[in-house]
């Protein structure tokens, strides 16, 4: 089971710059390492991370891209990403991780902007 820790302030003032933090559990296997038996460990990486913002009352909307990253083999296991955004209106932040072997994990966090 995949686990992720996402830290978003529950409430923010309009126009305030807030910090978002996201950690996801993933081995980030490079594909260059060998097991104790000498077999090559198959590559297993997260390739893409994205964070979209869906304004409240707009459930069908796919939202606007807030932040995205492409991840590579040199990134450690359980990658941690942190970024800032300006709080404009209340809504939901949707986090998405995608990677090798059909890996996909989604988290969403609601945020109220006053």
């Amino acid at each position, binding site marked *: *089971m995949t*686990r*992720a*820790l996402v*830290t978003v302030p529950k409430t923010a003032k309009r126009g305030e710059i807030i910090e978002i*933090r996201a*950690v996801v*559990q993933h*081995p*980030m296997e490079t594909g260059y390492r060998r097991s104790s038996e000498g077999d090559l460990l198959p590559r297993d990486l997260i390739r893409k991370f994205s964070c979209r913002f869906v304004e409240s009352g707009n459930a069908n909307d796919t939202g606007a891209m807030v932040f995205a990253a492409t991840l590579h083999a040199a990134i*450690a*296991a*359980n990658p*941690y990403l942190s970024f800032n955004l300006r709080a404009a209106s209340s809504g939901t932040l949707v986090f998405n991780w995608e990677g090798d072997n059909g890996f996909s994990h989604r988290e969403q966090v609601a945020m109220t902007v006053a």
Partner: protein
Amino acid sequence: MWRTSVATVMLFALMSLTQAQDARKSGFDFMRPATQALQMDDTQNPGMLWVKDGQMTWAQKDGAANKSCTDCHGDINRMRGVAARYPQYSLVAKRVINLGQQINQCRTTQQQAKVWPTEHPTFLGLEAAITMESRGQPVTPPSQPLLADAQKRGETLFNQRIGQVDLSCRDCHDSLAGKRLGGNTIPQAHPTGYPIYRLEWQSVGSLQRRLRGCMTAVRAEPYPYGSTELVDLEAYLAMRAAGMRLESPGVRP
């Protein structure tokens, strides 16, 4: 006035005395600031991923008895101070057991479920979640005669030279603590952060995994997981670290 100043002097004397007495340091104090920051901040600490899993497992019904930890113990926050008292003598097992073995004992006797396999991520998560409830609490091994025997056996193992490299735990962790072994600082071996997220492992691991790692490093044959020898060593280390504060989930290089 005179009385107050005497009291003040005595207080300062006592403070300096306790400071002078306790030269013990957690592995945390030997780490680089960046690694310390990783441990201090729960939103960054990767060990929290395991803790989150453990907290969910706490409330999950399992086994033939279809019981969860909550059914007997209530909310996980009632576990405050529990982890600080392990390893301890168990009346059920009739020997000294560590927290992990206690969890497995609950699984077989209460939940009637299978024991967790060694170093299973959910098992470690549950142990980490329970230990986190005692964060900031001092390590307090109970006074039990049979535990004292285990601590004594553990002390003997701690001082015994092993392996082709012919080193005892004491040789490095008492005599050479603070000095360097390759690129790493040798800590004083106080088990205050376990289960830890170790950057080298890129995952959470138990104290027994760490002990076995050291044994392999001195080219000795490590004791098997769950063996009396490893639990005895754990009991001795807990006694050695008595009064130091728990900091789970710890992060170590």
